């Protein structure tokens, strides 16, 4: 079927390209342009062009603070997700087949529950009189009850809950492609369990881990709902600042500049990352962001 | 060939960007002929088949069928039956529905369709499995369905792409016999692509041996086997032993052994490279006339013994029929002997 007609693939791709051009590329371009306008609370968006918004942001200590917070939260979340998600995927992989399906369902199923609902669960758990503090008090932990809600810790916990299934799924997908005979071959050659994991399994699932890590970092850095719900109004991240400028302060040009910076930061991180990571997994459609559902989360 | 040509490939070539898959391929097929395209993987045989089927467009040259230029005819209009190595059965249709598909495309009436599907399945001895889905059938059965599906449209040309490679050895042999018999009976012109030289030799009227995007020899199987055009063909179609010798006066000398040359080589003088097939060699006990050597190893192959005999001229493979007599022991001194007409001169490639 290759190349007999150059028109057919163009026709097939046309509808999606039209939709993407109209509802993605144009609007994104619009944000870029909007960010170059000035703003006045009396007159609204000013017609002139300039980089003032960016200058204002880059010299604003509040922005610097929330940018640092965003990165800190994203890095912690990514690290914890990898530390917890990779072994969990391996544990599920090693279970008897009849358990595997059920466990996977429990671990990955919450991905399909709205993130608002999941964050609400953490609000109930982490409140000053919430279940976590009640348990800590009963156990006699000194200092309990703690203030957990509206802290960076709460945001990281909430984000890990949202993201860790993605890591499990991503690693799981790579494990599925691993020939089980490899493991037996390694055992037969005298390798210990740990050595098999480190020398045989890990290198083979590395693409899955890397892809999962990138996805978690990007989604955590751009997350809005979890920081907003568990971090509260005072603990601003870049996303919630953007939201604020658009829907509360109504300084759209400044919000657009924030959005542009956020996107540039995320895309740069992605590019740098994929440079280092094997691009093999990216070649096949279906693995563009390997291991599942990301996007709408958090 | 005295018969008129049915299919002709005239200086066909195919490039993929800078890579040339087919340099130049020309051949003709007579009506009812069974031709084999034989070669190692990457030799261009499958690309050639795809171009005949209409799934790849040749970069150069012309393909004509029945005197008509095929270049602009789409695959769906060529009326060529295709059988793939993977069978490529429609997994969501039963055997009967698979076979009926081509007839539906030809708007054959339902009653006629039912009759012809039944006939086609009967032809491949699968009438009893008409309502099975492909996944409920064995490899051999799926293979037959694929064949019935290709034949039911009464194709003017049947293309078989490694059709038997996925079957186990015993079934493959059975299917070879069946396929040959079926092709004779229907008389459909057939082209078989395979990398298995024994399959091509067993089935085909002629084989075209391909290498590096061109045909190196096209001949009846036994001619190609006995008179290979070059080193490559000699090796590809089976084992052969090399015998570098010095010729003179209708005789030759190698490793201290003098032997007669066949009549066509009788007037040769000087160095000459001869080849001989393993099954044309005889092993004699030590002291008999012949090339002296020692049994290096022996393999028992059921009907045959395969010996490796070390001589002053290198190792010789010898295939002896298992006649029930006591075999030669490993390490035993022996002599090698042969008839003059078994010797071929090899063109130095």
């Amino acid at each position, binding site marked *: *079927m290759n190349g007999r007609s150059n028109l*057919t*693939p163009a*026709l097939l*791709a046309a*509808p999606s390209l039209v939709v993407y051009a109209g509802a993605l590329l144009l609007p*994104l371009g619009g*944000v870029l342009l909007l960010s170059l306008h000035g703003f006045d609370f009396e007159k609204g968006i000013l017609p002139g062009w300039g980089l003032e918004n960016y200058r204002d942001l880059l010299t604003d200590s509040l922005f610097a603070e929330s940018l640092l917070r965003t990165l800190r939260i994203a890095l912690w979340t990514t690290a914890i997700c990898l530390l917890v998600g990779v072994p*969990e995927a391996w*544990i599920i*992989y090693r*279970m008897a087949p009849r*358990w595997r*399906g059920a*466990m*996977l369902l429990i671990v990955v*199923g919450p991905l*399909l529950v709205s*993130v*608002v*609902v999941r964050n*609400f*669960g*953490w609000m*109930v*758990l982490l409140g000053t009189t919430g279940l976590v503090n009640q348990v800590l008090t009963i156990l006699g932990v000194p200092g309990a009850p703690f203030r957990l809600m509206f802290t960076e810790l709460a945001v990281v916990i909430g984000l890990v809950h949202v993201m*860790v*299934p993605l890591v499990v799924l991503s690693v799981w*997908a790579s494990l599925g492609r*691993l020939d089980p005979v490899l493991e037996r071959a390694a055992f037969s050659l005298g390798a210990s369990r740990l050595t098999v994991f480190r020398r045989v399994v890990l290198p083979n699932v590395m693409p899955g881990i890397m892809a999962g890590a990138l996805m978690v970092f990007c989604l955590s*850095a751009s997350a*809005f*709902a979890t920081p907003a719900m568990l971090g509260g109004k005072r603990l601003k991240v870049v996303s919630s600042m*953007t*939201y604020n400028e*658009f*829907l509360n302060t109504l300084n*759209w040009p400044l*919000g*657009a500049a924030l959005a542009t910076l956020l996107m540039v930061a*995320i895309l740069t991180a*992605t590019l740098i990352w994929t440079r280092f990571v094997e691009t093999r997994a990216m070649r*096949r*459609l*279906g693995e*563009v*962001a390997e291991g599942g*559902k*990301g*996007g*709408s989360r958090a | 060939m005295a018969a008129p040509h049915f299919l002709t490939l005239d200086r066909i070539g195919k490039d993929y960007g800078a890579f040339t898959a087919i340099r130049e391929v020309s051949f003709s097929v007579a009506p009812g002929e069974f031709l084999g395209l034989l070669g190692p993987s990457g030799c261009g045989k499958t690309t050639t088949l795809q171009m005949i089927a209409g799934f790849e467009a040749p970069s150069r040259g012309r393909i004509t069928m029945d005197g008509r230029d095929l270049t602009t005819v789409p*695959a*769906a209009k060529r009326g060529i*039956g*295709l059988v*793939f190595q993977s069978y490529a*059965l429609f997994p*969501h249709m039963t055997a009967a529905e698979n076979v009926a598909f081509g007839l539906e*495309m030809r708007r054959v009436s339902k009653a006629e369709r039912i009759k012809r599907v039944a006939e086609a399945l009967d032809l491949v001895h699968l009438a009893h499995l008409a309502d099975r889905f492909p996944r409920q059938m064995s490899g051999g059965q799926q293979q037959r369905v694929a064949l019935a599906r*290709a034949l039911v449209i009464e194709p003017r040309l049947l293309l078989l792409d490694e059709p038997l490679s996925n079957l186990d050895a015993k079934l493959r042999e059975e299917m070879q016999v069946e396929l040959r018999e079926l092709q004779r009976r229907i008389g459909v012109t057939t082209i078989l692509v395979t990398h298995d030289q024994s399959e091509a030799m067993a089935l085909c009227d002629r084989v075209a041996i391909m290498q590096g995007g061109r045909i190196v020899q096209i001949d009846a199987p036994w001619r190609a086997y006995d008179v290979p055009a070059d080193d490559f063909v000699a090796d590809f179609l089976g084992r052969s032993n090399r015998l570098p010798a010095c010729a003179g006066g209708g005789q030759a000398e190698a490793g201290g052994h003098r032997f007669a040359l066949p009549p066509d080589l009788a007037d040769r003088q000087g160095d000459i490279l001869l080849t001989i097939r393993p099954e044309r060699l005889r092993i004699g006990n030590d002291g008999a006339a012949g090339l002296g050597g020692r049994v290096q190893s022996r393999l028992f192959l059921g009907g045959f013994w395969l010996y490796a005999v070390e001589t002053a001229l290198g190792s010789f493979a010898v295939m002896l029929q298992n006649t029930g007599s006591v075999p030669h022991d490993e390490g035993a001194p022996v002599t090698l002997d042969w008839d003059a007409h078994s010797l071929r001169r090899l063109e130095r490639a």
Partner: protein
Amino acid sequence: MSRNGPLALAFHALFLTFILAPLLVVIGVSFTGEGYLALPLNGLSLRWWRAIGDNPRFLESFWFSLRLGVTAATLSALIAVPAALAIARWRFPGRGALVAILASPLMIPHVVLGVALLRFFSGFGLSGSFAGLVTAHVIVITPYMLRLVGAGLSGLDPRIERAAESLGASRLTVFRRVTLPLIAPGVAGGWILAFVTSFDELTVSLFLASPSANPLPVQLFNYIDQMTDPLVASVSAALILGTALVLLVLDRFYPIDRLLTGERRA
């Protein structure tokens, strides 16, 4: 038989607790009879479950989200299936770029997408409308759709299509009679994943919603912003139980890892 040691199983138990805790606690607290989020429960009550029925705005939002999800997932399938075909079956210049563009919404922060569409749509009066939300959701969910349809296509031997063509079928007939029936599971899986993603989508919708076009997650988010009473818990619990039910039924036909990655279970 499990090949995991006791340490691994303990880790697994902790992991499951962590994953399930916020969901179970929501379900638990929804059965309180008190006027606040009381745990542990002093007896079971359906008071706040009945309250869902008395609050038409959650029901309205539920139906709105359902309509939104079905419309967006269906439109997404209509553009994604041809695009996936082009990518899977042809080699053409710009193919890599097409793949990258179609997957790009996965990389773009949803706040940015929301901002961009709000600005863009307000120029056409589309912001706060059903059409605007549908368009936004199509962009958000199409990458998932493409992944599953693409996975379905890559599992389909192109020689099966060639066989159909050699038997005289036109391109359209090959698609209708052979390709489509064989990728139907992938399309169905993609549709479900796309629907669920749309149904759960919050961030982009926040920018585009209006009182007359208010998806359930937005409704819930804004409600929690004002107050957290057990009504939130009962609505959330209903969503959790509903999702669990769908998931259990779905898993019979379509294992969840395949649904989410397009790959078969190991």
